């Protein structure tokens, strides 16, 4: 039985499953979360209700990770484990598909700074996920810092769960950045309205919003007790004398997003600028593999859903269905991408963050590799190739496999292609050795 497999249950993945399902083809939607929605539409997993519906013909497999992807004749084999996260004792399943839609999303980009590994330092996405998904506030007095419009909805979520947000620090100059690209700005008027709504709420709660300011150090022994906030020069180096101490019990940081690339890399999809390259039909460079959402560029839920609709229709078409051209989605995707490009250009990460680091600041959190050792090892052993750099310094070789530190390590050591160096993860999600050793069971479900 031919069917489309969609990986990811966020806006893009749900839209892809709906579009393919609406075209009359069978769909398997695999998602690691307990509820549909992904990061953007995260539901409270404690609620007994499901906000989203999927058409009949879409089989939804939640609590399921795709841990490997391999090419087979006529398509790809998707290896899934379903059950309590990180096992053991999950159920294994392998599904072959001629039409795979990757909608694996993105995660917060964090920049290292002294103290960033203290408990109480979270990514903005963590604060959001815990607030929306668990009703938990990450602290009583919380400071948000980073760059980009995502900090605003996170502040809102924190207020919703009763945290006191002591400030939102934007490292860049977003207003001048947006004004420089009026075309893209107009393209996203709906999105701007949403952001204005967040801003108004922050104003009502008297949450200060500071531009060209960042958290450059976190203090504490066993957890965050305070941070140093400082004014930034345009290159993000600290303005001398501008540092001040802020008492907080949590700080949330986010500097844009990093796409979740491992499955696309395993499928050997071509990348462009660190994202999966797609054409107007959301087709990647690999036949039978489509990509949608943040994996192809950061643009928010609306754009992701539009891309998902297009990808789902394209996947269905590959299976012989004849869906109507997704005209509205194509139009939305076009304008959405212009807005995304404008936003992205308005929130660049400037090199001056490197000056926040000290010799003993951990760059790789997993393997506890400090900045000084990282640079010294790379320099003294001339280990500038990605593979040798990792093996000489151990940066990126721990449990997160470079997901958190990869981009920073690449920038600090001059590696050109961070995605190629760090996103190659044939084991796309960890599984227990005993799970891997298990009998493959019945033959993979056929194409």
């Amino acid at each position: 039985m031919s069917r489309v497999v969609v990986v990811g249950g966020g806006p893009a993945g749900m839209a892809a499953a709906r579009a393919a399902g609406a075209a009359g083809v069978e769909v398997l939607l695999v998602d690691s979360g307990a509820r549909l929605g992904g990061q953007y539409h995260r539901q409270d997993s404690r609620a007994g209700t499901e906000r989203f519906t999927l058409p009949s013909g879409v089989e939804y497999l939640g609590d399921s990770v795709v841990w490997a992807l391999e090419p087979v004749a006529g398509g790809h084999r998707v290896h899934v484990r379903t059950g309590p996260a990180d096992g053991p004792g999950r159920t294994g399943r392998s599904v072959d598909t001629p039409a795979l839609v990757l909608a694996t999303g993105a995660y917060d980009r964090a920049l290292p700074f002294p103290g960033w590994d203290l408990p109480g330092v979270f990514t903005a996405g963590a604060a959001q996920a815990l607030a929306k998904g668990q009703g938990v506030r990450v602290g009583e007095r919380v400071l948000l810092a980073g760059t980009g419009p995502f900090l605003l909805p996170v502040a809102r979520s924190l207020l919703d769960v009763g945290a006191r947000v002591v400030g939102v620090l934007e490292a860049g100059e977003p207003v001048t950045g947006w004004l420089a690209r009026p075309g893209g700005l107009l393209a996203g008027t709906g999105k701007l309205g949403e952001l204005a709504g967040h801003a108004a709420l922050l104003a009502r709660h008297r949450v200060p919003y500071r531009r060209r300011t960042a958290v450059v150090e976190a203090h504490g022994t066993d957890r965050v007790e305070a941070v140093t906030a400082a004014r930034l020069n345009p290159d993000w180096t600290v303005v001398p004398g501008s540092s001040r101490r802020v008492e907080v019990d949590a700080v949330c940081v986010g500097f844009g997003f990093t796409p979740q690339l491992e499955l696309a890399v395993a499928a050997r999809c071509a990348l462009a600028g660190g994202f999966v390259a797609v054409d107007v039909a959301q087709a990647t460079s690999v036949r039978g593999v489509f990509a949608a959402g943040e994996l192809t560029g950061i643009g928010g839920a609306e754009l992701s859903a539009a891309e998902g609709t297009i990808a789902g229709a394209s996947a269905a078409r590959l299976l012989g269905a004849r869906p109507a051209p997704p005209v509205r989605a194509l139009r939305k995707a076009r304008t959405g991408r212009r807005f995304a490009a404008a936003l992205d250009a308005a929130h660049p990460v400037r090199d001056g963050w490197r000056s926040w680091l000290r010799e003993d600041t951990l760059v790789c959190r997993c393997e506890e590799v400090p900045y000084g050792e990282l640079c010294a090892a790379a320099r003294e052993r001339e280990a500038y190739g990605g593979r040798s750099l990792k093996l000489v310094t151990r940066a990126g070789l721990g449990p997160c496999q470079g997901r958190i530190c990869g981009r920073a390590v690449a920038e600090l050591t001059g590696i050109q292609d961070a995605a190629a160096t760090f996103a190659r993860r044939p084991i796309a999600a960890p599984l227990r050795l005993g799970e891997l050793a298990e009998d493959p069971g019945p033959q993979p479900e056929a194409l």
Partner: protein
Amino acid sequence: MKVLIDGKETVAVEGQTVAGVLLGAGVTSWRTTRDGGRPRGVFCGIGVCFDCLVVVNGIADVRACQRLVRDGDDIRAQHGAELPS
């Protein structure tokens, strides 16, 4: 439902993650690193960073932010690297 947190019985509800239960109980750190013995807890909150590793029912290296609790789960702090017990 009830779960054990480092041996202490704690009330939890269906749909809570281990991290949700721990943070809700005021615990911010439940792991120490292998080399430096540094305390760690949730960082990314969405299963990417592997900082929130915890021991659940004798199995180490479980991401607390991803694992939903089940009645009777025995949740323990993870000290460095641990073998299954």
